[in-house]
């Protein structure tokens, strides 16, 4: 039970991290004409942040499998 609660708390944390990463004002920092290897910065940022959140969620729940 304790492990489940921990997973739940981690997922909630991932939720809030995602909320912050995917929205104003953090988003506006990357919302400018710049490129990373020719790819627009905003595009790169969102996909990296997205992958990070998914990774966080995967880590949260899969680490608890015995």
């Amino acid at each position: 039970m304790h492990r489940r609660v921990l997973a739940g708390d981690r997922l909630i944390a991932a939720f809030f991290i995602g909320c912050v990463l995917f929205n104003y004002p953090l988003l506006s920092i990357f919302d400018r004409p710049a490129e990373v290897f020719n790819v627009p910065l905003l595009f790169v940022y969102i996909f990296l942040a997205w992958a990070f959140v998914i990774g966080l969620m995967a880590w949260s729940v899969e680490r608890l499998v015995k």
Partner: protein
Amino acid sequence: MLEPPVVIVVSLLYLGLLFAVAWWGDRRADQGRSIIANPTIYALSMAVYCTTWTFYGSVGRAAVSGIGFLPVYLGPTLAMALGWIVLLKMIRIVKANRITSIADFISSRYGKSHGLGGLVTIIAVIGIIPYISLQLKAVSNTVGLLLGYPEIVMPHRSAAMTVGADISFYIALILAAFTIVFGTRHLDATERHEGMVAAIAMESVVKLVAFLAVGVFVTYGMYNGFGDIFDHVEVREEVRGLLKAIPSGDGYTGWFSLIVLSGLAILFLPRQFQVAVVENVNEAHLRRAAWLFPLYLLLINIFVLPIAVGGLLHFAGQGVDADTFVLTLPMSQRQEGLTLLVFIGGLSSATGMVIVETIALSTMVCNDLVMPMLLRHNRAALEESKDLSGLLLGIRRGAIVVILLLGYLYFRLAGEAYALVAIGLISFSAVAQFAPALIGGMYWRGGTRGGALAGLSAGFMVWTYTLLLPSFAKSGWLPGDFLMQGFFGVELLRPQQLFGLAGMGEIAHCLFWSFFANIGAYVGVSLLRPPMVAEATQATLFVDALKDTGQGGAVLWRGRAQVSDLQELVGRFLGPARAQSAFAAFARRRGNSDDVTPEADAKLVQFAESLLAGAIGSASARVMVASVAKEEPLSIEEVMHILDEASQLRTYSRELERKSRELTAATLELQAANERLQELDRVKDDIMSSVTHELRTPLTSIRALSELLRDDPKMHLPDRERFLGLIVSETERLTRLINQTLDLAKIESGRADWNGCELDLKEVIEQSIAATSQLMREKEAHVEVDLPDNLPLILADRDRLIQVMLNLLSNAVKFLKQGSGRISVTLGRRADGLEVSVADNGPGIRPEDQQLVFEKFRQVGDTMTAKPSGTGLGLPISRRIVEHFGGQLWVESAPGEGATFRFTLPFAHAQQVEVSPDTAV
């Protein structure tokens, strides 16, 4: 390869394959070897979220608003992070109450209300129709494009086109037929469709593979990777502006509303509810799905922007609709195989959505709209009919056809004016209206039926006014001037700038006002009056769903019903054979298969109701069961009492567990105490037997000597004197023995009198030596004394201490050889006290005996030669006395080298701190 017959045959083959997968899945389910009991399949089935909106529409959206296609995938990612909590609770509730749809869920929560279920159904059907028309539009567009191959001609329809000549009409009919065969072949009490889920999961794989194939082809086939595509953008100013900013029209507000909207949609779209909640096999699958499904979304979106940019660059100025880039780019490169794959991928995303959505909607229409009406108006006919399962299936099939035709109608009326994504967002906004009543219902006990009705109605009306009607107006089907001037020319009522709220996108605008009205009405009306019995009951069941993991809850029913009536009732809806086996299984589970009582108890009534709820919805099931069971209404106090009782019972049982744990611990303690007692008892017995033995020896000799004296009066005087001397000494020994035994018993039981005072140890020792000088002289022993002056005082009982010294000295004398004995008494100072040693040059004590001498009645030494003259209690008593005053007594010796007894006593000042209470007296 893209000739019409080939396309048609391949499409039909693909649909046939889907059907085969579904059939196989159902078969396996019947055999109990489910193929969908797998977290990956579960996550893939959730990907039914990705429809043609994603497959074709995302690129179209990206071509207009750049990165703006993404928030509708970020929202579900966030929602899945919370899904662990929200979805888990929904799954528990659904399984516990046999809920089959979102309408059933809401109606059941607010007291199994028919009205509420109907309203939710209507909102869902109307709200989802644009979404279904979106699929029709996408499929018919792509079919039209393929028919034009190798040319790329945008299919366009004129309003004058007859229905009979319209290809999308036939597509709607085919999809309807396919769905009917798929989802309504038989009636299941739980409304679960394992085969369908298997097919949906397969479709999710197909559409992902197809989309990635196009993405790779465009990005790496037509261009040289991501960097190269975006490099080309530099040439074209308008495309470049698109890619580097949040779309200016909506801004961050629009972006945020889309995240909220899509996050809600992933929970409340009827098809998502169906696959994620109703079809869930095992709630543990949620764990994998929580990240696998967002990962799927990420993968299917990676190539959206490159394809959009590639299309914009490639088709610049050719008037190709961006919604079709996914298909037209491979077409333009004459990639026939890839084009066909894309078409199948698009077909997958459309059929998947249509199948699940219409099955979910048809269940709702049947259970929450048609059945309640039939119950109200045609009750008599329903009650006469023996088997209604055919009727139920008929209603559902009819509903599927009607829903698809309504989708087609919307497509004809409004579909042309909007891009795919815009149509979908209208639907998202509609289902988002379920959120307050549903989430509120799961976490807030105070929500009432009135509040839910008011909130849903208000939200739905605002949605209709601010989003649905404008969509009709924009397509020219309604006069467009009310958009600009508002109804009745009141500018404040302009649908998309309601009350003058401007500067928002239409979605954000609708979301704000509809939630404002919805939540406001829901909370406001709920707070007007306390919940009624049925509402409070259901509220407890829903809100506490995660708490009660035990079997079943409290049974909130009281009344009388016949088992046969109930079985017949269930049989009418599920078929007699199914009812028979379900009731038999229930009886077996409860362990009374043999004696079937005619009278049904509350649990059986509840079971029957839940069986029916699966088939006709919980509200109708309640009505039907009430028709055969004479229910006595429960008052709210009684209901709360039963619920309280249930929770009290749980508390009691927890209490009981705790008590029994304590009892076990106490038992163990008792056992240990008992063992200790037994041990003590044994020791006491030993002592008693030792004591009696020790007493008997002198007594026996006294008696023997006395008898000798009595029997022989002529005994010579010297003998007589010798005997009398022996009698006297044995008597003395006996007295000493008794005194010492009593003394030891007193010390051991803590009842001894101690007269502690500060003493000069030197004086005590000198006094003791003086007292034993007669003994020494008799043995002609030489005494050496080393007693320094001015040593600190110690705290002890003078008489007791003398007792110790006398004991040690007399012991030493006892073992000395006549004439050559030497005793040395020394007093020394140690760190924390004084040490006294009494050494002799007697025979010594063997190492193995050095502990024994301190045990009671143990006299060591050569018992063969020397008759023991002591009591065997002197040393044990001495040791006790020394220990009582905080010191130690021990012996150092080696055989043949004499023995040295030493004891220590702490200083009086240091001792004041550690003095034990009885010492201080």
